[in-house]
């Protein structure tokens, strides 16, 4: 598992979302917006996102962690923490 | 696997052995008789006469009349006796003079050799090898010239081999004898005199796979037995015209090696099947059908077939030649397949009709 810095983490998240929603427009999403609402990710999309993120970062994401993934900034912080603390 | 092209007489490598197809076959028989006392050779004139085509010449003197056994002209009886002896633990090699005569023993080959294992629920394997000549080209007319190996390739329970090279003539017999089931070996009459060098490193061969005798990119010439030299000659001719032909030697007509055939056509996208049998219901038809079943979306042209004309093979030289697949016809078919028909002034033969009477 490679430690991520905040920029890396944000890039991974955005890239993963783009894979699920090809035309996702991040200019509409403020760092503290609930991106699920803004980008209209349904529960299946969100599950796909979790799948992609854990695949790409190696971070294990449990259901209990989902609340950490509400905004882009929270999500990035979550990934940074998990990749640095545990590696 | 090492393959020798019988057609060419390239420079002799040190240790290569100059030989003929006939001698290679005889050497295979001699080796089998020497190494396994259960092996014996039985057939019409295999002993004192030395074999109708001279294959077994000298073996009687070496192995005696019990093991080089002249049989009366009773194809059914001696083929059936071979089957019975195989059931009782022997490893008989039965020679039938030509495939046309084998029809007199067809009952034994089909109803017994090919059937007993299954019909007995697995109790009675029949480890027999039946050799016979096949094919035309020697002006022997309609009762000595046909290519009926495709019929035998129709029959489950048989393995059907068609050695076309010196190496296969020399080395296919041993695995055939080792096979617990009946194996038919078809030796094309025009190959016996083929001569060349048996490579020093030639050795045991398998009897499961076809062989690519010449690699190419534009079209696959799929053939076997007596048509292999013709296909190789055609490939040379095509190469001079800028067409790269791959030549696949089937070697084993049953079970067919779909993988090797398919891989070749997947590369070249075009196939010409050359088969001296009659076109209708032929082995060529089987191969064409399999190609469309398994490789339809790889095909860039209809599968071409070059087969014998639908006529009993005639005696007169000109007629016989016209009845058989020839290099020119193979070249023309290959050119059609790659979409470069030969210029008309060379008199490209028309594509033959699919069935029935010619012309």
């Amino acid at each position, binding site marked *: 598992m490679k430690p991520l810095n905040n920029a890396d983490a944000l890039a991974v998240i955005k890239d993963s979302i783009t894979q699920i929603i090809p035309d996702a427009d991040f200019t509409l999403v403020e760092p503290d917006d609930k991106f699920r609402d803004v980008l209209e990710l349904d529960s299946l999309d969100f599950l796909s996102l979790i799948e992609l993120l854990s695949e790409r970062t190696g971070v294990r994401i449990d259901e209990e962690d989902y609340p950490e993934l509400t905004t882009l900034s929270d999500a990035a912080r979550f990934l940074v923490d998990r990749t640095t603390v545990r590696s | 696997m090492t393959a020798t092209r019988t057609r060419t007489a390239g420079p002799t490598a040190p240790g290569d052995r100059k030989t003929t197809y006939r001698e290679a076959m005889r050497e295979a028989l001699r080796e089998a008789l020497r190494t396994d006392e259960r092996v*014996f050779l039985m057939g019409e004139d295999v002993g004192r006469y030395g074999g109708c085509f001279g294959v077994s010449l000298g073996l009687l003197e070496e192995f005696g009349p*019990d*093991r080089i056994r002249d*049989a*009366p002209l*009773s194809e*059914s*009886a*001696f*083929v*059936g*006796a*071979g*089957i*019975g*002896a*195989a*059931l*009782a*633990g*022997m490893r*008989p090699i039965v020679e039938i003079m030509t495939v046309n005569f084998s029809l007199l023993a067809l*009952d*034994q080959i089909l*109803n*017994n050799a090919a059937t*007993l*294992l*299954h*019909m*007995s*629920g*697995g*109790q*009675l*394997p029949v480890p027999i090898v039946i050799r016979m000549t096949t094919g035309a080209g020697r002006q022997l007319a309609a009762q000595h010239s046909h290519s009926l190996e495709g019929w035998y390739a129709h029959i*489950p*329970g048989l*393995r059907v081999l068609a050695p076309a090279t010196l190496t296969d003539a020399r080395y296919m017999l041993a695995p055939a004898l080792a*096979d*617990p*089931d009946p194996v038919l070996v078809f030796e094309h009459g025009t190959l016996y005199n083929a001569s060349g060098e048996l490579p020093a490193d030639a050795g045991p061969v398998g009897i499961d796979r076809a062989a690519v005798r010449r690699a190419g990119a534009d079209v696959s010439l799929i053939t076997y037995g007596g048509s292999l030299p013709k296909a190789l000659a055609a490939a040379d001719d095509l190469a001079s015209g800028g067409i790269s032909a791959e030549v696949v030697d089937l070697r084993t007509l049953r079970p067919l090696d779909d993988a090797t055939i398919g891989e070749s056509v997947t590369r070249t996208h075009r196939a010409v099947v050359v088969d001296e049998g009659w076109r209708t219901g032929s082995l060529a038809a089987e191969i064409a059908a399999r190609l469309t079943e398994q490789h339809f979306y790889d095909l860039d042209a209809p599968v071409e077939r070059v087969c014998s004309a639908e006529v009993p093979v005639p005696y007169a030289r000109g007629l016989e030649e016209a009845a058989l697949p020839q290099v020119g016809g193979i070249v023309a078919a290959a050119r059609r397949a790659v979409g470069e028909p030969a210029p008309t002034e060379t008199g490209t033969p028309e594509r033959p009709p699919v069935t029935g009477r010619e012309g």
Partner: protein
Amino acid sequence: MSATHTPRSPRTASRPNRQAAGHRLALLESMLRVRRFEERCVELYSAARIRGFMHLYIGEEAVAVGVNEALTDDDAVVSTYREHGHALARGVPAEAIMAEMFGKVTGCSRGRGGSMHLFDAGRRFYGGNAIVGGGLPLAAGLALADRMTGRDRVTCCFFGDGAFAEGEFHETANLAALWGLPLLLVCENNLYAMGTALARHQAQTDLALRAAGYGMVSWAVDGMDVFAVEDAARKAAEGIRAGTGPHFLEMRTYRFRAHSMYDPDRYRDKGEIEHWKERDPVEGLARRLREAKELTDKGRTALEDRLAAEIDRAVEAADQAPEEPVGDLLKYVTSAEASRP
């Protein structure tokens, strides 16, 4: 015209000195087993439990049973499609035969042969050939192998008068005599090649005479008399083992039932059948044994009960036996497929 055989005994035959009543009873039991087994087969065929072609041996039991007395376990038997009797006499269990006819995996050919193709390699019983005459070259080959390896064994080939018209008989007779093969050729002449009477398919109906023309020892035998059959077969087998080459026995016999279950039997006179039934080999032997006080009514009843129970068990077992899974369809086409798990 009703077909009959000219009674003639083997030239060298003398009534065997078979004093042992036990042996005579054993012959009776063996013949009666064939008879009762086949009678049950008819029932089961009618109930559609057995299908395909089924040819009954009823009337000819003395031949199979008598000839088998002359053979050892090492000898080989090649038979025809009318082979229930040969198989049972050879010792193939009734259960295995019945299961085969039921098409079950426990059948002696794993359900792939049926009535016409019974095999038992362990008992050197090579079937079960339904091509008339097709078994003859095979038998010559078995004999040839023994001859070449110096094994003291006899191969016995049964075939009918119909096969006498096939080239394969003549090719084989010549080959066997030419090479002096240890082959016992037993022609079951029941006077009909399917529905064609002997005189309508053979120019010369004395088959033993013609076989002698190939240069082999050849006798005609009363095939309705098990003692005569046994006696001739023993003498022939002794001759073969002594190295005098193939022997030919023409067993003059008769089938009481039609050619097969499909056969309406239009070509035979009822009177002819009744005439031959008077010479029923099974009841004839039973009568002789009763007269000789070797078989009591009680003994007969016990024998019948025993056989009935044996056949009941065979039917029951066949009924219960599993079928070969269809997934194994391609098994045994080649040895590679046979050994595939």
